[in-house]
């Protein structure tokens, strides 16, 4: 049935190509038995061997945090550091707010508007970044964005009015779109079994920038004041050169050292014919017609959006409600962001661990449980009136809310292969929309006290996490429904028209489908349409 030439390459129904010779691809894939036949022959476009074990798509099968081997681990480190510096720049103003508000004569409304502006800009830029990653690659996306927003950071030392302040924070906030390039890049470099931990660690360590900045900026400000002897109103301006210079340096490093895919950069791969230019309309179409995109954009708004909101309000909350001084309130505020060191990665790890046993259904349950518990803890935080318990509740709450972010991106890479960029971007944008909405409803006016706002935000988290129940993958099932007879190939090939398939444009998706069979969980019976092995030539 299959002509001889197809033996060399995989065909549309998932029959494996030469790199998986000997494997029918129809048996369930158990954890730890990833096919390694192809490993010895795995080389990139230039014929270099990979430092890490790779799968058929040349994605790494492990994460070695202490290594900087190209391309996988080098990409990992470039990606998370770049994202961390962008977070640092976006939230560089809040720790210095007591000085800035005196210099510029800001009112509470101005500060609130600036906080919303800082996360609103990224709504648009995250959507665009998804498309850019799909079309020109994450390396260009990340580097270009960082170096274009760096001038906005350098404009902050020049600001002298409240409007100027709000505008500059708005433009700096665009660089939060590096989140999308980071996640997209991780999903391109790391195998689906470990994509949860790779995404979670990279994003979690990136988000830590929001905590680190609360400690670093006041320190830099102090050093400038003491050692250079500047006035307060000048010292904070000079301090802003630190995030600016860091961002430019990182942008250059990403541009020169980064690589889009394990096999090479988009431009080289396109030239060699290994990567096809995709059409924006098609990529966009398959993102907007997939209902899962919208559900995850909403739920992400109530884990990551909540995290951004808390980053903006938590220092003031502790300062006001518990009468702390600014330094202590700042230290407590920074611990919230610093929990990201392990909480978001753990969310991804939990997602991967649960998937090994229960597959995608496990990932969905994992996400729903973690995010709902986070919502309940948020309600408790708003109701806690003593300082010690409030700090403890805040720390546990931060763990769950950040783990939920990690768990979300354990699922996103499977929603679509063709439109991964736009869907990552839409989810990220949904996160920022959640932050804008939540700050606008609960924390702008004097209608609610801050503690009531926090409690109501918790209720909203629980409510907006319920839609996860409705996410259904035909090949893997959903939280309450088992899978149908469809296969992974059926699901991913539905994104390519017959014409595109005949041009062979879908091969990358088919390789991905093959590798994603791990999402069935352990010991699930074969469900493919033909139970017997097809012998070539028949």
């Amino acid at each position, binding site marked *: 049935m299959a002509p001889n030439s197809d033996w060399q390459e995989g065909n549309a129904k998932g029959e494996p190509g030469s790199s998986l010779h000997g494997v029918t691809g129809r048996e369930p894939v158990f954890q730890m038995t990833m096919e390694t036949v192809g490993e010895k022959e795995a080389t990139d476009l230039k014929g270099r061997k990979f430092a890490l074990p790779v799968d058929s798509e040349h994605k790494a099968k492990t994460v070695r945090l202490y290594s900087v081997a190209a391309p996988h681990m080098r990409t990992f480190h470039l990606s998370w550091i770049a994202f961390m510096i962008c977070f640092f720049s976006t939230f560089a103003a809040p720790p210095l707010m*007591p000085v800035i*508000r*005196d*210099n510029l*004569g800001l*009112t*509470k*409304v101005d500060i609130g508007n600036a906080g919303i502006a800082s996360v609103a800009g990224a709504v648009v830029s995250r959507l665009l970044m998804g498309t850019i990653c799909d079309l020109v690659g994450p390396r260009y996306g990340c*580097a*270009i964005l960082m*170096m*274009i927003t*760096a*001038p906005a950071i*350098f*404009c902050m*030392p*020049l600001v*002298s009015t409240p409007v100027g302040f709000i505008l500059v924070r708005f433009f700096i906030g665009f660089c939060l779109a590096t989140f999308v390039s980071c996640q997209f890049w991780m999903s391109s470099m790391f195998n689906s079994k470990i994509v949860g931990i790779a995404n979670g660690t990279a994003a979690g360590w990136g988000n830590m920038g929001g905590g680190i900045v609360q400690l670093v900026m006041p320190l830099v400000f102090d050093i400038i004041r003491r050692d250079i002897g500047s*006035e*307060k*109103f*000048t010292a*904070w*301006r*000079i301090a802003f*050169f630190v995030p*600016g*210079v860091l961002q*430019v340096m990182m*942008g*250059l490093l990403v*541009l*020169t050292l980064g690589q889009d895919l394990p096999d090479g950069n988009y*431009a*080289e791969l396109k*030239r060699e014919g290994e990567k096809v230019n995709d059409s924006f309309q098609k990529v966009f179409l398959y993102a907007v017609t997939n209902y899962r995109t919208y559900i995850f954009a909403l739920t992400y708004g109530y884990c990551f959006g909540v995290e951004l909101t808390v980053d903006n309000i938590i220092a003031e909350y502790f300062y*006001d409600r*518990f*009468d*702390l*001084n600014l330094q*202590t309130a700042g*230290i*407590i505020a920074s*611990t919230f962001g610093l929990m990201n060191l392990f909480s978001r990665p753990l969310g991804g790890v939990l997602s991967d661990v649960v998937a090994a046993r229960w597959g995608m259904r496990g990932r969905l349950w994992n996400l729903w449980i973690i995010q709902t518990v986070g919502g309940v803890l948020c309600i408790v935080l708003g109701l806690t009136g003593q*300082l*010690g318990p409030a*700090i*403890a509740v805040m*720390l*546990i709450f931060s763990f769950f809310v950040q783990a939920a972010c990690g768990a979300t991106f354990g699922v996103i890479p499977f929603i679509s292969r063709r439109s991964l960029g736009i869907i990552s971007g839409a989810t990220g944008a949904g996160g920022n929309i959640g932050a804008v909405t939540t700050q606008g409803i609960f924390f702008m006016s004097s209608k609610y006290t801050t503690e009531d706002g926090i409690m109501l935000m918790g209720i909203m988290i629980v409510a907006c996490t319920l839609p996860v129940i409705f996410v259904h993958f035909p090949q893997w099932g959903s939280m309450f429904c088992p899978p149908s007879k469809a296969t992974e190939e059926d699901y991913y090939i539905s994104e390519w028209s017959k014409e595109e398939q005949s041009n062979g444009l879908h091969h990358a998706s088919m390789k991905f489908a093959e590798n994603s069979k791990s999402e069935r969980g352990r010991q699930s019976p074969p469900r493919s349409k033909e139970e017997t092995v097809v012998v070539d030539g028949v």
Partner: protein
Amino acid sequence: MASAVIMSFLAGALMLCALASSVEGGVLFSTLQKTLSVEAEIQSPVAPMGIARAGDDHLVISWVLQGDAAAREDAEYEKVSLKLCYAPVSQVERGWRKKNDDLHKDKTCTKAIATQKYTSGGNSTVWRVAKDVPGAVYFVRAYVLNANGTQVAYGQTSNEITVEPISGRHASIDVAAAIFSAFSIGSLLFFLALENVRGKRSSSK
């Protein structure tokens, strides 16, 4: 292992709790008597116009025990602490300058001008408006402190002083910002062009 992590966090939380400064109730402003009369005047090389420029102009502040105060009232008066306080118009929409009757929590008078020894004949001081004074409308208040440093009486000016702040900007910062921004965009374009040229060269091989 998870319980060890949780335990260490609760321990850390309790430590943070200990670090937090505890607040004791302070003197209530409404219990203080107004026994001093205070005057403040702007001294400026440029024609005053009621605006004091931070860093350049001076305030001449003089205080004296009010004529109708009974002589024995000032037995416990030790020091006089002069402060620059926000006028109500500058406290609107700014919770960090909020008035509170409890003087420990009150944020109206945050800028200290001077502390002088109390004499019944009164005293005066000349103070250059500091460069970190925000732009706002102010009045001057003098708190009388007893030997423990607690406020026992006060006096304040009836006129308001507007302070024009420094901008904090310098020409050198503006130039540096422009140079760094140009470098950022310029190096980006340079590297993109370089890759473009390299790409064309290898595809024409």
